[in-house]
């Protein structure tokens, strides 16, 4: 029983991180209908920028994290300005944009591999491995940092869902052209959304890098996590994306407890297919008529 509690506690930490990942992916998917495959590339890019800032430039962990988030946002903005924006203006079909995004992700991943090599990188941080006991479960300092940072971020995001930016995000997903007709600067909002997504993805990227380390080829796994969370939770609502992240993390803990971590993908994707079959719009999705999709 204690093992289960411990695993659920770990799951809660992962849930917070998966939820942030999912929000970063969901924002782009919901607003621009862009299946942002290069999101995995953005994740790894941020993680390795962070690694270089700490180990090469010698900054502290917190200041490196802040700089990485800023650089991640810049990278997100650059992706819209130099990549997705031109496709959007050309009215490229969503399938072609997805394939192009896949290409961009491959370029980022292998570009990083040229610089950093294929080996996993970690950041030696002795102070963070210490753990504290809270009742029957133990939390390491890094887990507490993960929970705290992501928890605060998620609270801010949830509170911000009624602001103008997030209302525009939803409106863009419904009808971008109408939004333009009403005088909203669509290009500016798209750039903002991509910058926000790039900044958000940098947070779990740094936290995972400090915790267990990463290699440059792990972006695809995190992209799939984010995408499964968004689709299972429901594309239409941010609360759905967060719920999807929570569900995935808890599921991961339970699978590890009952079976073994190696069956994780099977359970996660099996669950996704079952959810989509029974409720296509996702758990917290909004059902639409065929004409509205």
């Amino acid at each position, binding site marked *: 029983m204690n093992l289960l509690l411990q695993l659920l506690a770990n799951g809660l930490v992962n849930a917070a991180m998966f939820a942030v990942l999912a929000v970063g992916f969901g924002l782009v998917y919901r607003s621009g209908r862009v299946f942002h495959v290069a999101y995995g590339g953005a994740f790894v890019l941020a993680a390795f920028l962070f690694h270089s800032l700490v180990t090469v430039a010698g900054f502290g962990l917190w200041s490196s994290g802040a700089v990485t988030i800023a650089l991640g946002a810049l990278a997100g903005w650059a992706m819209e300005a130099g990549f997705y924006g031109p496709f959007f203006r050309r009215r490229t079909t969503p399938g072609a944009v997805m394939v*192009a995004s896949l290409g961009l992700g491959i370029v980022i*991943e292998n570009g990083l591999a040229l610089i950093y090599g294929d080996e996993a990188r970690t950041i030696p941080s002795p102070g963070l491995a210490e753990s504290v006991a809270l009742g029957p479960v133990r939390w390491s300092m890094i887990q507490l940092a993960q929970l705290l940072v992501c928890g605060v971020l998620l609270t801010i995001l949830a509170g911000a869902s009624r602001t103008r930016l997030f209302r525009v995000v939803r409106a863009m997903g419904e009808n971008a052209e109408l939004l333009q007709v009403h005088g909203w600067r669509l290009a500016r909002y798209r750039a903002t959304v991509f910058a926000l997504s790039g900044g958000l993805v940098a947070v779990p990227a740094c936290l995972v890098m400090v915790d267990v380390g990463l290699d440059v080829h792990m972006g695809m796994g995190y992209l799939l996590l984010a995408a499964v969370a968004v689709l299972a939770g429901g594309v239409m609502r941010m609360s759905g994306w967060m719920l999807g992240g929570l569900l995935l993390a808890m599921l991961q803990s339970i699978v590890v407890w009952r079976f073994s971590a190696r069956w994780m993908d099977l359970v996660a994707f099996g669950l996704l297919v079952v959810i989509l079959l029974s409720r296509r719009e996702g758990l917290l999705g909004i059902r639409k008529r065929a004409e509205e999709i």
Partner: protein
Amino acid sequence: MRSPPVEPRRTQRAEAPKPETWPAWATAIAVLAILLAWSPTYVSHLLVVLGIYLLLAYSLNLVTGFGGLIVFCQAIFYGIGAYAYALSRLRTGAPGAQVEELLWTGNLGWVPGILLAGGVSALLAGGIGWICLRFRGDYFIFATLGFQMIVFVLLYNWLELTRGPFGIYGIARPSVLGWMAHEPWQYALLTGLWLLALLPPLFRLYRSPFGLSLAAMREDERAAKAMGIDTNAIAVRALAVAGGVAGVAGAIYAGYVTYIDPTSFSLRESIFILTLLLLGGGGNVKGPLAGSAVMLALPELLRFVGLPDAVAANVREIFYGALLAALMYWRPQGLAGATSIR
């Protein structure tokens, strides 16, 4: 209301002289002969690999090029074919001690083994298609991706069936009536025979009412339904055919390398096969050929340029990725394709 324009295309085409194709064929065969004389082993190996990927690209072309459905699980049809062939013929090869660990092994002949591989993959593809085709668009793509992950986990972790990461070794080589293939050129010949057996019917399928129905579904599914086409049924059948051909490709692969493990059939392989098709373009016969040729020639070219092995793989991937993105921007129909994806 405007009257519909008279369609002059067919008559014009009949008047225009058909371009001669034999010089191209003769050049290709001559180049091939020279290359084979230069290095028989190396060129034969390239031909076998090209043959396998041509089967994969042409089978996927039916679903993605004609049907317009992006599929991210072609590698598992390929992999299931490879495993079906390996297991069904294991007792005829040099099985060793692994036979005791495995749930099922057989001693089929070469042709029955390959046909079984195609059949099992076709069934699997039909079943997966039946489920995934409840969705369209991003959801369909994601459902196929889900099955790629699910079947991969099974291949990797169901040790009694596949020995998982340890792989299956000593897979029986192709053999007919006591004769067994050993040399690369023999494999190239046998692969060529399978291409000759499978591709013409597949090309016929492209031009048949079935292929045209798939194209109609790609262009406008609602209109196709209104014309009386059962789009779900034809898409399931197209997937089953694609899966069957991919299964044969897997069987040829298993018989050629004689050792398989699940890492050859991962999501990356599915992405590679899809890239092969999208790079060349779908919806016709030229596209997949162009894509396979470029994707397989590039690593060899880089090798001859003299890039060190450590960076060559990454440089190659960067080139593929950049080419894919550039094509989607300037030429979404690919190098030689007839249609672009939506």
